[in-house]
């Protein structure tokens, strides 16, 4: 199982804060899986810039996700 988190506008768009999934593969593959969950999900992962952190570290699309990981998706950050 992996835990998937969503933040900010993305969380609102998907109306989803958190998912537990059976998954292993790259971030790109995970995004493709998530995009199949419905039109809103498809749009969110294709039309907008989505950043990813694996285990709370900024990561890239070609990195691998394995059981036990926490994967977070979010829009570009706007703090400071």
């Amino acid at each position: 199982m992996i835990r998937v988190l969503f933040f900010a506008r993305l969380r609102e768009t998907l109306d989803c804060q958190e998912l537990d999934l059976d998954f292993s593969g790259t971030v790109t593959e995970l995004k493709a899986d998530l995009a199949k969950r419905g039109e809103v999900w498809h749009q969110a992962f294709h039309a907008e810039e989505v950043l990813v952190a694996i285990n709370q570290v900024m990561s890239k699309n070609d990195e691998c996700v394995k059981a036990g990981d926490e994967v977070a998706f979010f829009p570009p950050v706007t703090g400071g």
Partner: protein
Amino acid sequence: MDTILVQTQAFNAGELTNRLASATTAHGALVTFTGLVRDQTSDPVESLFLEHYPGMTDSALNDIVAQAKTRWPLGPVTLVHRVGLLYPGESIVFVGVTSAHRAEAFQACEFLIDYLKVKAPFWKKETTPSGQRWVATRSSDNAAAERW
């Protein structure tokens, strides 16, 4: 020696400044940056909500400070970021850097806020008379971070 905090409570930029000034007599230069909620005149901001990724913000801020310390010879550093609900005039973020010489202190302070703006998981949502809106990324922020 360094202070790195993410908090919902308001902070006092002046107090943080004075604490850094008295934290060291070996470092003669102190540069601070304070970011405040602006009250824009066109579509006035009534309030600002700062969302964050709690598990990640601390480590992201610690990592950014660690990077600054490998680049410049710094004394004590303070980085405080607020989350939750804020109103115009309130302080969002404080970055304070000490160094023996001013050029390094200026560079490190600007590096810290530039990096924080693109690498730390905070998101701003504004409430205005015309509704709520997520603040958009500014391309100038990406350009600023890429300079370093």
